[in-house]
């Protein structure tokens, strides 16, 4: 098992991180005993007690400073509610994500409209602490709760002809007030290639910071694809469609010269209007003097996902 290379035990001082580690270990412990995580045993907990990293799931960033919950839940893009960063938190307050139905369609053995709770019941819940890199060159570190996307896909049984999976956000202007304005074509759409969706890192979040997903962050269920720019991580999903053609994704539709389908975090390929080489990290405390940090290829997850793009020209397929 590999460790995160830039991670030193003595950096682990922040209270948040310790708290998250405990929660993570609790989850991991439950999962390990229930047999979900072969290879991850109770030694992980012992190691953590000795201030070392647990050696399962090394992509859980136990040693990077977690973004303060108040920032992650009050500073984000969710155009369905507002174009301002602090707008969604204010305007999504009364949004009611229950009950919630998800339509499953296309090349799949189990098409239909499902009640969300039934659809995801019993899928192995866990916490993932991921970097989140917005295409606007700011980033956060967020502890998500949910399950790996492949668990859900396996449950839905796509046909072998399915090469892509497409997602759609709710379109309901009465509940998502900014949809009255045609700032972007509604509903918001995103998609992944099937092998990307089946990757261990692709995640469906139903919570963050150990709580149910706040409305402004995409309640009740959203995608989290940590090696791609944030706009790929579509929120408030109501439809999952399996297809053999590359699906439309909204930002590519809006500005094809600026946003591609893949949207992998890539410091070597600039946005046509701004640099993607570095980012402003929003950490535990907002500060005027936080240095810009270097953006990593695949947002630092190359070890797990670079193989998906072997032989592809990532300048062309940006």
């Amino acid at each position, binding site marked *: 098992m590999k460790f995160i290379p830039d991670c030193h035990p003595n950096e682990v001082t922040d209270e948040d991180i310790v708290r998250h580690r405990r929660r993570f270990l609790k989850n991991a412990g439950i999962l390990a005993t229930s047999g979900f995580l072969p290879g991850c045993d109770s030694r992980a907990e012992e190691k953590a007690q000795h201030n070392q990293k647990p050696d399962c799931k090394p992509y859980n960033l136990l040693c990077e400073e977690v973004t303060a919950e108040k*920032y992650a839940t009050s500073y984000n893009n969710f155009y369905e509610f507002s174009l301002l960063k602090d707008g969604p938190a204010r305007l999504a307050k009364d949004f009611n994500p229950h009950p919630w139905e998800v339509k499953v369609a296309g090349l799949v053995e189990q098409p239909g409209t499902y009640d969300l709770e039934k659809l995801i019941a019993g899928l192995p819940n866990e916490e993932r602490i991921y970097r989140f890199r917005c295409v606007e060159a700011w980033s956060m570190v967020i502890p998500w709760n949910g399950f790996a996307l492949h668990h859900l896909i396996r449950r839905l049984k796509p046909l072998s002809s399915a090469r892509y999976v497409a997602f759609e956000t709710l379109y309901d202007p009465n509940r998502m007030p900014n949809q009255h304005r045609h700032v972007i074509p509604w509903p918001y759409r995103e998609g992944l290639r099937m092998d990307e969706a089946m990757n261990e890192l692709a995640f469906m979040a139903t919570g963050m910071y150990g709580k149910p997903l706040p409305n402004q962050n995409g309640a009740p269920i959203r995608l989290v694809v940590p090696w791609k720019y944030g706009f790929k991580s579509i929120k408030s999903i109501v439809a999952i469609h399996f297809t053999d053609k590359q699906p439309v994704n909204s930002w590519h539709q809006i500005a094809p010269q600026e946003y591609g389908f893949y949207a992998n975090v890539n410091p070597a390929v600039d946005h046509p209007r701004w640099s993607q080489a570095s980012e402003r990290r929003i950490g535990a405390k907002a*500060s005027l003097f936080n240095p810009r940090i270097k953006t990593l290829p695949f947002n630092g997850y190359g070890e797990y996902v670079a193989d998906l793009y072997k032989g592809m020209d990532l300048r062309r397929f940006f």
Partner: protein
Amino acid sequence: MKKLFWVKAALVILAAMPVAILFYRGLHDDLSADPVEYILHYTGIWALRFLLITLAVTPLRRLFNLPVLLRFRRILGVTAWIYASLHFGVYLVLDLQFDLAHLGEDIIKRPYITVGFLAWLLMTPLALTSSNRAVKALGRRWKQLHRLIYIIVLLACLHFIWLVKADLLEPLIYTAIALILLFYRLLQTNRHSKHSE
């Protein structure tokens, strides 16, 4: 005369209010999750607002027959330059942290930064020649030089339009106001030239 002094003093205080509010918010940890971005946008938008207010002086003075307004134009124009300088300063010091290579790359490669930087650069000689002495020394050429503000305001609007991701409404509102203020001058010059024929 004395009365005018107090009005001017009040105007200076008013012009400094946005900075005071910014400090207040800063002290109360109320500059959003990304304070650098917040201050960048804040100082930039106030620079543009003061540019537009400065440009509005002549039309307002003529429309409402208030020649006294001209006496406040210098304060407004210099304020616009101060906000633009703060905007550039925050970008260089807090955002880029004096990474001059990054600055050079941005100015050359990013058109929205190119035009924004150019706008600030062109404002600087105007701010430096705002003293009574400079006005006298430059004579007719002072007026010619200060017509640069027409180009500056258009560059500033372009800077704003080019940096937004999807929603052009806000930058386009500012641009529309700028165009109306510029169009007014075009009408005036046409009328004047017709009269002189």
